């Protein structure tokens, strides 16, 4: 990998300082995407800011109608947290399906959403559960946070502090993992709130994660297999690659949606 300067910090203020002084610097969270990317020489930050020493970014908090998760909480910690398992089991199972156990021991929720990989799992949970993403500067709704491929609303000197998820009546995440990478070839997170349903899709959209509003409309009156079957995702705007073309992928989204609905009723 290209050379860089490694800096370990103990506070968010120190991160801000380095990000302000050095525009080529990058935050190192769990590193499970960034370090393999750097090994391939696909990224060459001048400075890596290791934030693993900032303890205030590691927590899971029960706020009654929501749960808040610190950005440096690992996938393993989310999947095994009693609070998450009790109040939002669909999120625990999402976290348990990311990558492999070794990746889950290092990778973090903040790293995942800040990277906004179009096939990552967490962005669906954020959109579907109408999460609030808290940064060192502001609160951003998930709807405004995920902008496009590997692109978020974060400014260059902004860092995710926590993610706050609303607790739905029920929710389910279904994914068809790529057999090699475990990233979603299609992932669908359905959340049912009082008189409202959200359906978020990952692994499929050419611009990354999205809310599938046609399906939401179909499911809002009655969460039934019949209603789910009445809507089909158009292959237009859906990714095509060596793993699956857009038509196949769109159908995978239909199938994952059906499975999630079957699981919820």
């Amino acid at each position: 990998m290209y050379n860089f300067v490694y800096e370990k910090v103990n506070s968010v203020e120190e991160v801000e300082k380095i990000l302000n002084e050095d525009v080529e610097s990058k935050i190192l969270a769990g590193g499970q995407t960034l370090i393999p990317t750097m090994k391939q020489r696909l990224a060459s930050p001048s400075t890596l800011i290791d934030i693993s020493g900032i303890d205030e970014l590691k927590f899971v908090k029960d706020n009654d109608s929501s749960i808040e998760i610190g950005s440096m909480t690992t996938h393993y910690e989310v999947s095994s947290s009693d609070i998450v398992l009790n109040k939002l089991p669909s999120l625990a199972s999402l976290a348990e399906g990311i990558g492999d156990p070794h990746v889950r021991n290092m990778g973090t929720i903040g790293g995942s959403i800040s990277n906004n990989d179009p096939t990552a799992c967490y962005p669906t949970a954020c959109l579907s559960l109408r999460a609030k993403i808290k940064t060192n500067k502001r609160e951003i709704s998930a709807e405004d946070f995920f902008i496009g491929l590997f692109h978020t609303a974060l400014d260059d000197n902004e860092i995710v502090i926590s993610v706050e998820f609303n607790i739905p009546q029920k929710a389910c995440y279904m994914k068809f993992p790529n057999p090699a990478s475990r990233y979603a070839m299609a992932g669908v997170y359905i959340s049912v709130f009082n008189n409202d349903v959200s359906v978020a899709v990952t692994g499929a959209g050419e611009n990354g994660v999205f809310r599938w509003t046609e399906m939401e409309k179909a499911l809002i009156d009655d969460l039934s297999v019949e209603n789910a079957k009445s809507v089909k995702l158009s292959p237009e705007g859906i990714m095509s690659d060596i793993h699956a073309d857009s038509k196949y992928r769109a159908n995978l989204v239909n199938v994952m949606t059906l499975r999630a609905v079957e699981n919820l009723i």
Partner: protein
Amino acid sequence: MPKVSININGQDLSAEVEDRQLLVHFLRDDLDLTGTHVGCDTSQCGACVIHLDGRAVKSCAMLAAQADGKNIITIEGIADGDNLHPVQEAFRDNHGLQCGFCTPGMIMAAIDIINRKPNLDEKTVREELEGNLCRCTGYQNIVKSILSAANR
């Protein structure tokens, strides 16, 4: 250059590392702990799995500098003198390896699986081995070894 203080296999050590040095290269090249293997360039194969503060991680997907202040156990650190670790024993008894290249990572992963999952069944073991590739055995005897070790 960052300075690191690490406890490796029960021994404290301090060293200077290059900023970009991967932990696996620090272990192999600087400390001569060559039991930890590099099997791929893409952080997918799991031959480099070690324990960082008791949890299985890929030493090729982290920097040596990130290990400052941590406890590390490598494959060299699990046997008790001449007495093999129960998971090593189980791999030997069940022919859980052929060429042996993936074995250090398999065993470190297996110990972590057994620590985390009290009632292991075959399906769970196979799911949990997601991050470890073996090109010889077809996994059959690796799964058998881990199930056998879990009962020891």
